[in-house]
C-alpha cells in the first residue's frame, strides 16, 4: 500500500520529465494524453488509497513511505519520505481530482498554442510539487514542495512570455512569495536549533513538551511560519501579487491561484496547529489577518472591471475566511471551506475562462452582456458557482462551509463578536460582488458576440465541478439540520475539535442571519446592476472606488517603500565605488613616476648635482651617528 502512496507524486513527475525532454517532438494529442493521464492516474490512486485509508485505518492513522536519506549531517536529518494522514488525504484528493479536471479542460483551452507541451510539463510539475508539499513528513521536504510550487506559479504566470507585462507579474509573484518563504526558512532554523529535528510530528511532540503556552520561542516560530503562510496564500500584507497573477492562462488561475497553491498557507498552519495552539497571540493574529483580508478583498472585488481580477480578489477574501476559521481554532471548518472553495472557485475560473475564450480574449465585464442565451451551459454552471460562492442558503455547499465558519467565529472559545461581524459584512459583500459580476456579464444586451460554442472537453469538467459545488456541502450538516459531521469526524482524529465558549446562543439564529444577509446581497446587486445601472455608474467614478480598485493602494505603497529605493540604490553605484580605491592607488604611483621622470632630463650636470647631494647626505649621517 505504501508503495502506491509513493507513486502518487512520482506519476506527475514522470509526466513532467517525459514532456519536458521529448515534448517538442510529440504530436499534441500524445502530449495531452500523457499530461492529463498522469494526473488522472494519480487521482485514481488517491481514490483507492483514500477508500482503503478510511475503511480500515492503520494503527496510528498514518501511511508512511521513506524513499531515501536526503541530508544527514551534524544532527540535521531530513529524508525524502511521504506521510499520508487525514489532513493530507483531503488535500491530495482535491489537488489530484480538481487538477485532473483542469487538465482535461486545458487540453481544449490551450489547443493550438505553440507552447502546448511546455504548458502541460509545467502543470504536471506543479501537481508533483503540490503533492510533495502536502505529503512531506519533514519541514525541509515541505519547503522543497513549497518552493517548487512557487517556481511553477512563476513559470505559468509568465507562460505567454512574449508579453513583458506577464514576465513582470510572474517575477512579482515569485519575489513576494519568496519574501514570505525567507521568513518561513528562518522559522525552520529556529525550530531545528531549539527542538533538534525537522520531522513534523516529532517537532509537534517536542514543542508541546519543551515550550510552555505563550513562550517567546513558540510565539516567534509561529509568527515566522505565519509569515510564510501569508506570503504563499496572498493574505495581508503580501496579497498584491495575486491579482496580477491573472496574467497567466485561465486553467492556471483555476488550479494554482484558486484551488491549490494559495491554500498551501492554510495547510501549513493546519499541519503545525500544535505550534499555533502554543502561541494564542499568534493564533488570534491569524484570525485578525483573515478578517481584515476578507474585508479588503471584498471591497476591492466590488470595483473591478476584469472578470478574472474579481475572481482573484474573491479568492483572497475566501482564504481570509479560512484564516479566520484557523484563527478561532475551527481547524476542520477551515479545511472543509478549503475543499468546497476549491470546487466552486475552480468552476468559476474555468467558466470565466471559457467566456473570455469565446469572446476572443475580452476581459472587461462591462463589454460583455446578455450571454445567457448565447452559452446556456456556461451560464448555468457559472450561476451555480456564484450561488455557492455567495452561500445561497440550503442548496449550495458554500452556505454550509461559510456558515460553519461564521458560527464558530462567534461561538469558539477564542472567537469574538468583532470577528463574526467582519465575517458577516464580508458575506454580504461576497454575494453583492458575485451577483454584480453575474448580472453584468450574463444579463442586459450583448455587446460582443461569442464566435463559437465551447467544445465538449470544456463543458464536462465544468458540469462535474458544478455538481460538486452543490452536493459537497451535504457531508457536513450543522447541528440544526441533523448534525451529520462525516467530514469533521475524519479530520478530528488528527486536528483538535473546536472548544465552544458559551452555549446559550443557539446555532439556528446564526444560520437564519447568514441566509438573510446573502439573499439581501443578491437582491441589492439585482437592483443596482439590472434595474437602475445609473446608480452604480456614479459609484464607479468616485475616488473611493479608485482606491478600492487599486487594492487599497498597497501596490503604490510597496512601490514607493521597497522598489524605488532599491532601484535608486542600484543605479547610483552601478560600477562599484570601491573600484576607485584601486584606481586611486594607481593614480598616486603614476604621479610619482611623472615627478621622478622630470628629473631624468639627461643633462650631465644634473647627474653630478645628484652625486653631490648624495655625498652631502652620506657625510651628514656619518658625522652624527
Amino acid at each position, binding site marked *: 500500500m505504501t508503495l502506491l502512496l509513493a507513486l502518487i507524486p512520482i506519476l506527475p513527475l514522470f509526466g513532467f520529465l517525459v514532456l519536458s525532454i521529448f515534448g517538442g517532438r510529440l504530436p499534441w494529442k500524445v502530449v495531452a494524453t500523457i499530461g492529463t493521464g498522469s494526473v488522472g492516474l494519480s487521482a485514481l490512486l488517491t481514490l483507492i488509497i483514500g477508500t482503503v485509508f478510511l475503511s480500515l485505518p492503520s494503527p496510528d492513522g498514518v501511511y508512511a513511505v521513506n524513499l531515501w536519506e536526503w541530508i544527514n549531517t551534524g544532527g540535521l536529518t531530513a529524508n525524502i519520505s511521504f506521510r499520508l494522514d487525514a489532513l493530507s488525504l483531503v488535500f491530495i484528493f482535491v489537488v489530484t481530482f480538481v487538477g485532473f479536471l483542469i487538465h482535461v479542460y486545458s487540453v481544449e483551452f490551450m489547443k493550438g498554442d505553440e507552447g502546448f507541451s511546455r504548458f502541460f510539463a509545467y502543470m504536471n510539475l506543479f501537481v508533483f510539487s503540490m503533492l510533495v508539499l502536502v505529503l512531506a513528513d519533514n519541514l525541509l521536504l515541505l519547503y522543497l514542495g513549497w518552493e517548487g510550487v512557487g517556481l511553477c506559479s512563476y513559470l505559468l504566470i509568465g507562460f505567454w512570455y512574449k508579453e513583458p507585462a506577464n514576465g513582470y507579474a510572474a517575477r512579482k509573484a515569485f519575489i513576494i512569495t519568496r519574501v514570505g518563504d525567507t521568513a518561513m526558512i528562518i522559522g525552520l532554523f529556529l525550530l531545528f536549533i531549539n527542538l533538534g529535528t525537522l520531522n513534523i510530528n516529532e517537532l509537534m511532540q517536542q514543542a508541546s513538551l519543551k515550550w510552555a503556552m505563550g513562550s517567546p520561542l513558540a510565539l516567534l516560530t509561529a509568527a515566522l511560519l505565519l509569515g510564510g503562510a501569508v506570503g504563499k496564500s496572498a493574505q495581508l500584507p503580501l496579497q498584491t501579487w495575486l491579482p496580477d497573477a491573472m496574467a497567466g492562462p485561465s486553467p492556471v488561475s483555476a488550479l494554482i491561484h484558486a484551488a491549490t497553491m494559495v491554500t498551501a498557507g492554510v495547510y501549513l498552519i493546519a499541519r503545525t496547529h500544535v505550534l499555533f495552539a502554543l502561541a494564542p497571540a499568534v493564533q488570534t493574529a491569524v484570525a485578525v489577518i483573515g478578517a481584515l483580508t476578507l474585508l479588503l478583498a471584498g471591497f476591492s472585488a466590488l470595483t473591478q472591471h476584469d472578470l478574472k481580477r474579481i475572481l482573484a480578489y474573491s479568492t483572497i477574501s475566501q482564504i481570509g475566511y479560512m484564516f479566520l476559521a484557523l484563527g478561532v481554532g475551527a481547524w476542520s471548518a477551515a479545511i472543509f471551506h478549503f475543499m468546497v472553495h476549491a470546487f466552486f472557485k475552480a468552476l468559476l475560473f474555468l467558466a470565466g475562462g471559457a467566456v473570455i475564450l469565446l469572446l476572443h480574449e475580452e476581459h472587461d465585464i462591462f463589454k460583455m452582456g446578455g450571454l445567457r442565451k448565447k452559452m446556456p451551459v456556461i451560464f448555468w454552471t457559472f450561476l451555480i458557482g456564484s450561488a455557492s460562492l455567495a452561500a445561497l442558503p440550503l442548496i449550495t455547499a458554500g452556505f454550509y462551509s461559510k456558515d460553519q465558519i461564521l458560527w464558530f467565529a462567534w461561538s469558539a472559545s477564542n472567537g469574538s463578536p468583532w470577528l463574526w461581524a467582519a465575517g458577516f459584512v464580508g458575506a454580504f459583500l461576497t454575494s453583492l460582488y458575485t451577483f454584480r459580476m453575474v448580472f453584468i456579464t450574463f444579463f442586459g444586451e450583448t455587446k460582443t458576440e461569442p464566435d463559437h460554442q465551447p467544445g465538449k472537453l470544456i463543458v464536462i469538467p465544468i458540469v462535474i465541478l458544478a455538481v460538486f459545488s452543490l452536493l459537497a456541502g451535504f457531508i457536513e450538516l450543522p447541528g440544526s439540520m441533523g448534525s451529520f459531521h462525516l467530514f469533521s469526524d475524519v479530520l478530528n482524529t488528527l486536528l483538535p475539535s473546536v472548544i465552544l465558549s458559551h452555549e446559550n446562543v443557539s446555532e439556528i439564529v446564526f444560520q437564519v442571519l447568514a441566509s438573510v444577509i446573502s439573499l439581501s446581497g443578491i437582491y441589492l446587486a439585482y437592483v443596482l446592476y439590472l434595474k437602475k445601472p445609473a446608480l452604480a455608474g456614479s459609484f464607479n467614478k468616485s475616488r473611493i472606488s479608485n482606491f478600492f480598485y487599486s487594492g487599497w493602494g498597497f501596490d503604490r505603497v510597496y512601490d514607493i517603500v521597497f522598489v524605488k529605493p532599491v532601484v535608486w540604490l542600484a543605479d547610483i553605484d552601478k560600477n562599484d565605488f570601491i573600484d576607485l580605491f584601486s584606481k586611486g592607488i594607481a593614480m598616486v*604611483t*603614476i604621479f*610619482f*613616476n*611623472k615627478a*621622478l*621622470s622630470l*628629473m*631624468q632630463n*639627461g643633462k*650631465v650636470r*644634473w*647627474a*653630478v648635482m*645628484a*652625486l653631490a*647631494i*648624495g*655625498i652631502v*647626505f*652620506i*657625510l651628514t*649621517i*656619518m*658625522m652624527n*651617528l
Partner: protein
Amino acid sequence: MSPSDFLCLTPVMIIAGAPILMMLTIAFTRNYKVIYGFSLTAFSIAFLSLFFILPAIPCRISTLFIFDQYSILFSGIIILASLLITLLSYDYLLYQESEKEEYFIILFIASLGSLLLVAASNFVTLFLGLEMLSISLYVLIAYRRSRDHSIEAGVKYLILASVSSAFLLFGMGLIYLDTGSLEFDKIVPALSSADHSATLLFTGFGMMMVGIGFKLALVPFHMWTPDVYQGAPVPVTTYIATVSKGAVMALLLRFFFAIRGFQNPGFILIITILAILSMFVGNLLALRQQNIKRILAYSSIANMGYLLVTLLIGNETGIHAAIFYIVSYIITSLGAFGVITLLSDRQNDADKLENYKGLFWKRPWVAIVFTLSLLSLAGIPLTTGFIAKFYIVFTGINSGLWLLVISLIINSVIGLYYYLRVITALFSPANEEKLPPVSLAGHLVLGIVAVGIVWLGVNPEGFLSLIAHFSVL
C-alpha cells in the same frame, strides 16, 4: 712570490696575456673571425684554469691579492659572463665597417679589471682594478661612433665615472691618512672597532661609498644609468649590467662583511636608505617607460636595491643570499639583454616597445626566453628570480629587517606592472616588421640562459650547496 703564487695567478695571467697576443695577431692580419675565435678560447682556458688552481687556494700574493674560494667563485662567474657576452657581440658588430677587432681586446681588459677587483685585498688593487674597468668601459660605450647616442653616452659615463673615482680616491686617501696602511687587513680592524669619534675614517669610507654607489647605480648616483644603457651598444650594456656590477658588489660584500658594517648604526642607516630609495625610484621610474633598454636600466637599479638588503643580514646566510641573487640576476640580465642584442639589426637596436609587438607569434623561442627572464626579474615562481627574492626575504625576516622586507614586497608588486606591460606587448597581435635571423651562437646563449633560469628556479638545491661550500670568507 712562491711557485704556488704563480699558480694562483694563472687565470689573471691568461686574461692579461690574451689581449697582448690578440694585438700582435691584429698587427699581422685584421681578421674578425680569428680574433673572435681567439677570445672565446682564451676565456674558456681561463675558466678551466680556475679548476686547476683550486687545490692551491687560499693564497695571498704580497698583500695585493687574495685568491680564496670567494674570489675564485666570482672569477668563474665573471669569466663565464664575459664568454657569453663575446658570443652575443659577434653578430652585433659583424656589419660595423671598421675596427671590429679592438672591441674584444678592450673587453678582455675590462674583464681583467673585474678579476682584480674581486681578488683585491689592498686599496691599490681596488683602485687599479676599478679604473681599468671604467676606462675600458668609456671606450666600449662609445664604440659605435656612427650612432649619435653612443658618443653622448660615452661622454656622460666618462665624466660621471671619473668624478666618482675621484671621490673614491679621496676617501681612500683619508682612510690611509688615518690608518697608515693601504692593506685591507690593517684597515678592517680599525674600521670595525672605530667608535663615534673617528671622523676621518668615516668620511673616508663615506666618500668611498660614492664611488661604489656610482658603479652599482644606487639611487643618488643613478642618473647616468638609463642614458648609458640606452646609448651604449647592447652587448656593452649587458656587460655593465652584469660583470661590472657583479664585480663591484663582490668587493663591497667582502669589505662590508669583513668590517662587520652591519653592527655600525651609521652604515646600517645609510645602506637601508640607499636600498629603499633605489627600490622605489627604480621601480617608479620604469612604470610608463616605452624604451625596453631604459626599462631594464631602471629594473637593474631596483634589483641593486634588493641586493643591498643582504648586506645588513649580519650572518653568513647573508652572503649566500647575495651570491645567489647576483648569479640569478646575471643570468636573467644576460637573457633579457641577450634577446635585445639578437633582435637588433644593422640600422637600429630593437629598443622600442613596438618592435616587440607580437614577438610570441614571430619568434616563439626568443619570446619564451624573454618572458622567462622578465618573470625572473619580477620574481614569479618557476624562475630563479623567485628563489633569489625568496632567499633574501627569508634571511631578511630571520634577522628582523621588517622595513626592508616589506618595502621589497611592495616594490615587487609595483615592478610587476611594467614587466607585465612588456609581456603583454610580446603576445599582442603581431605587426608586420621583419626581424633579423638569430644565429646559432645566439640560440646557444639563449638555451644556456633558459636552462639556467628554470633549473635554478625549480631545483636550486645543488647550486645552494655549491655556494655554501665556496663562500667561506
